[in-house]
């Protein structure tokens, strides 16, 4: 399978969207593009598994390389391993759902979809590129669409949030950039991830560049204390924007931390692992405690994202194969889950026109479908078995527990405590929103429309697919984690 | 005592700083222009002195001086034209009063 197609389809869709005349055409074009991409990524998944089953054990499959800037050794080097395939699957699910959730966007519809598709293109490109330069290109390409999506179609203090988000992400990528230069000059003037992974990068460089790269990507994935764009950004964004932000963009950071920072600089990773896990454990706990105090529904999910993404970094920082597998699973799981959560919040907000949870109540009565999904997603968030969150978190815990010293044990236990706090805030939110007596003014509310239902069902499928049968994801991801671990073992 | 390179250089540097000082302190645009001429003249003096005392076989310095003079003339011409136009707009050529563009 030619991976370039994964970038081209969104690109063509975006251009097509831009050329369309009326809103209906725009919507359907975007939907068609997103669906094609979904089918493509499912096909990629199948092709990948077939290739693996056929005994192809190369680290990356479907590789292709085209020189872009010869003098810099920059090339469009594409390829996927299990981890990237998982992330691509996640992206395509979220994109389709996001497109569907935006069906009612009236203001500048064309531009909205254009930016949305552009954003998704950034994510696809990011996950399949094996060249740091190209990777960085795709990382940054998504910043402006996010800014505009929040700033134009957002709500609340949207300008502030949009600015904050764009600037913090830009700051993050600035750090990434500097780290990348370290790799480039430390690793024989190459941006190629595969080449770099075969070169031993000087430990002195690693010590400087690992924190830069990790913190830089960490900004994207809400690493404490760089997470503050998350609550504001998520809550101000339009529904699809939040879905993309939390579901896809935050994953770019996690993926970068893993594939770039940890994989290419194992000595650095070992050196700084303690700091990483302390910070991420803080994010996990602190995020969940902060969530407990929020009153705005979107803030709740945003802070809980901080907490959940803390698990991703925790898994990466623990540096065991199981934990890293778990981290990737958590990325996928949280991506789908949080996208669905935002979708549900969007559905509710569109009807109640408030996001303050204490102004709502009893919506289960008038909106049974939406409220049921809300229950499911809440339970997924607090790690109910059978839904995706459980699988990922447990894998991380199992992996973390393999580190036997007291420090790692203490951190792990601290992180597990968040499952209780999560239960507290999720139940608080659900109890306020869906349960309890209903207000008179909400009695006439209608349940989700077809597009909303379809969107939520698509994401729900993702959640259930991971939650009920995690082995496929595990089989997909763990060989990739294994390769990363081999490098870390050497470094240890 | 014959004047040597040092003396001439001393004069030229003095001239340079007089020009600079004049440029910094005079309020009249024309006077400022004249201060610049002083700076340029100090340069000319430098060139000639170097030519005479250090590199008597290379005439670059002399030629350079001529070019500087020419350019200075052109510059003065344009500058005065500009100042005239400025005077039309501002009714003054006091540099302190011409500061609408700032910050």
């Amino acid at each position, binding site marked *: 399978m030619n991976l370039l197609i994964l970038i081209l389809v969104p690109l063509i869709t975006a251009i097509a969207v831009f050329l369309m005349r009326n809103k209906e055409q725009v919507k359907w074009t975007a939907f068609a593009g997103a669906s094609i991409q979904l089918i493509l990524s499912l096909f990629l998944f199948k092709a990948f598994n077939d290739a693996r089953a056929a005994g192809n054990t190369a680290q990356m499959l479907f590789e292709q390389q085209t020189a872009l800037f010869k003098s810099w050794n920059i090339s469009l080097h594409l390829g996927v391993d299990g981890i990237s395939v998982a992330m691509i699957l996640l992206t395509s699910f979220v994109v389709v759902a996001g497109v569907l959730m935006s069906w009612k966007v009236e203001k500048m519809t064309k531009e909205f979809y254009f930016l949305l598709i552009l954003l998704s293109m950034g994510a696809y490109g990011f996950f399949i590129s094996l060249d740091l330069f190209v990777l960085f290109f795709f990382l940054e390409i998504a910043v402006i669409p996010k800014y505009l999506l929040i700033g134009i179609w957002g709500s609340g203090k949207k300008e502030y949030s949009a600015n904050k988000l764009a600037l913090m992400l830009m700051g993050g990528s600035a750090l990434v950039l500097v780290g990348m230069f370290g790799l480039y000059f430390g690793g024989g003037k190459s941006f190629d991830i595969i080449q770099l992974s075969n070169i031993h990068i000087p430990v002195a460089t690693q010590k400087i560049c690992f924190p830069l790269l990790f913190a830089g990507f960490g900004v994207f994935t809400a690493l404490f204390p760089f997470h*503050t764009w998350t609550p504001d950004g998520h809550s101000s964004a339009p529904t699809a924007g939040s879905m993309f932000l939390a579901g896809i963009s935050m994953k770019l950071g996690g993926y970068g931390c893993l594939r770039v920072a940890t994989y290419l600089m194992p000595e650095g990773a070992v050196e700084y692992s303690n700091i990483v896990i302390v910070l991420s454990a803080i994010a996990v706990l602190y995020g969940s405690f902060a969530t407990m105090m929020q009153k705005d529904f979107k803030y709740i999910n945003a802070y809980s994202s901080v907490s959940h993404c803390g698990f991703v970094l925790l898994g990466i920082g623990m540096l065991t194969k199981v934990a890293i597998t778990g981290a990737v699973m958590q990325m996928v799981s949280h991506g789908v889950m949080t996208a669905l959560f935002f979708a549900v919040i969007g559905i509710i907000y569109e009807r109640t026109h408030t996001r303050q949870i204490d102004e709502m109540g009893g919506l289960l009565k008038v909106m049974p479908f939406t409220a049921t999904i809300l229950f499911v997603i809440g339970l997924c968030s607090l790690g109910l078995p059978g839904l995706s969150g459980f699988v990922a978190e447990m894998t991380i815990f199992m992996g973390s527990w393999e580190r036997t010293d007291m420090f790692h044990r203490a951190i792990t236990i601290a992180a597990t*405590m968040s499952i209780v706090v999560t239960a507290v805030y999720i139940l608080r939110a659900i109890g306020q929103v869906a*349960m309890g*007596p209903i207000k008179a003014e909400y009695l006439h509310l209608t349940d989700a429309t077809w597009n909303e239902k379809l969107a939520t069902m698509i994401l729900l499928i993702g959640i259930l697919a991971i939650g009920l049968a995690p082995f496929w994801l595990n089989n997909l991801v763990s060989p990739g984690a294994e390769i990363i671990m081999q490098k870390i073992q050497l470094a240890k | 005592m014959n004047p040597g390179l040092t003396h001439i250089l001393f004069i030229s540097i003095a001239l340079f700083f007089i020009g600079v000082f004049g440029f910094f302190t005079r309020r009249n645009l024309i006077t400022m222009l004249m201060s610049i001429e002083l700076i340029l003249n100090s340069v000319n003096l430098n060139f000639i002195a170097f030519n005479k005392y250090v590199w008597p076989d290379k005439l670059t310095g002399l030629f350079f001086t001529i070019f500087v003079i020419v350019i200075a003339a052109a510059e003065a011409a344009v500058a005065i034209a500009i100042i005239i136009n400025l005077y039309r707009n501002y009714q003054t050529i006091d540099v302190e009063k011409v500061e609408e*563009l700032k910050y």
Partner: protein
Amino acid sequence: MPNPIYIILILLLPLASFLIMGIFGRNHIKNASGIISTTLLFITACLAFYVAYGYFLEFGKVNGVYQKLIPFKLTWLEFSKGVSIDLGILLDPITAMMLVVVTLISLMVHIYSLGYMKGEERFSTYYAFLGLFTFSMLGLVVASNIFQIYMFWELVGVSSFLLIGFYFEKPSAVAASKKAFIVTRFADLGFLIGILILSFNAGTLDFQTLIQRLTSPESAELKSAVASSFLGISTLSWGMILVFMGGAGKSAMFPLHIWLPDAMEGPTPVSALIHAATMVVAGVFLVARLFPVFAISSPHALEMVGNVGAISALFAAVIACTQTDIKRVLAFSTMSQIGFMMFALGVSKYGGEEGLGYTASMFHLFTHALFKALLFLGAGAVIHYVHSNDMKDMGGLRKVMPITHLTFLIACLAIAGVPPFAGFFSKEEILLAAFHHNKMIYWIALLTSGLTAFYMFRLYFNIFWNKEHHAHGEHHGEGGFVMMMPLVLLAAGAAFAGFIPFGKFVSSDGLPLESEFHLQFSIVPVVLGLTGIFIAMLFYKKQNDKSDKIALALNGFYKATYNKFYFDEIYLFITKKIIFNFIGRPAAWFDKNIVDGMVNAFGNNTLAVSEKIKSFQSGKVQQYAIYFLSGVIGLAVLFIYLWK
């Protein structure tokens, strides 16, 4: 070996019931949903009986020992070699017994609910939840993997949450459901860490391998687990204690019991199923499942189980004496009885005669399920009629509800341990086991069984005797056939289940255990029980003020007991005041003001600096020239003199 498909079907049918009712119930088959679910569950129950029958009497025994069979296993999530979550079925005596209990009680509740929940708007949803619960509970009992049990453990918790909060428009129900979930979740945290410890030290998650590795004296895993310690307690004991913490939470053991009384906000049949007969004994089941490890390798943890059980038993019994909400009385009684089961395990040893406590505990679990479900269903019938939970609104109902009255009486006699009802036999065995191994617990148990008799009959007399009932008009008291049938069936069970030779089937090591009947030993408890009944009769059979006087005399103590020793308040204080105010609020504040503040301060300072330095661009061309010259001089000084 049975065809594993049967056992899988036992799980899948309730799941199917859940899915069908959940997806189609609301719009398509609302009225038929009860019948469909009940039918599915009936088949399930038949299958369960079939499997249990087969296990106990046909294929389960090899050379006289009940085997642990694993007819089905599927690798669900493999962490590393040997450590994987498997979905499997582990068939052994307690599983078989639990299959029977769970499906039987669930079937009774399904049938009963046909009448009880009739006309409810979310009728189908109710059945869907019941299906989910039954599925999860069955999954829990057949689990072959410690992580599998944890998964179903959580699912059970969620179904309990959903059912308690079934009347979601009632704020108290919502609060109760949240409380139940969060408290058990907190306990599960311990369970989870326990699992992590055990699995790491044993290198496996599979029950059989785990137990084998952690009990055989020469295994390296056991040695390392015992050798390493934290705070003076061996790692293994930590693991077991934490696992027990999970069990204690689910089984409402002291001090994690606070959710159980509130859980009575759910529909009464649900209370019967979940909060009396099945889910709350999951903790006991868990301890029983890991019993060899407790008994052989970690006696300290087992001792703790015993103590916690004993304390809970007494504590709950005392509180039960003062409650006026009939469901709460039953809830505390449940807690007390589970305490019995727990300490029965706690005083037991592994194997042979010494393992009597284990058998007794399981036996009591079995009988208790029958009579406690009966009590709840009876109470449900009463509530259905009176439309109140408070015993002050009741009295003299024996005439309007004869069948309910009779069955309730049987159940009360059973729980009070009056021979020849079921409770008598199981309780006798427990007391015997306690007597042999731990005198302290024995005395507590004896006292508790006396109290049990007292508060049960207090309940009984208050409902059916006491003041005279003035029937409201033509209203017929009984709830119809579907509600009566389960009562009668369960009453039969409560009356006769004691005659089952339980020790033959269930014992700690799989070998049949012949339990003897010691007449002289039984005298004391029975007499104590009868005394309790008598006192209750004295106080409550007729309306009088004796009980009030006693309450007055015990003023402070009575109040404390009535308020459940203020445990709710303490917890509320810790969560609301301490956690919210001292952790949550500061975290939110910190985030808003410090972390966010730093980002904003960075922005604002940048702007402020840019405002400050604007005077450099003064608009004066002469100043520009000065800056220019100073730049030149600066550079010259810097690079000619300083930088070298």
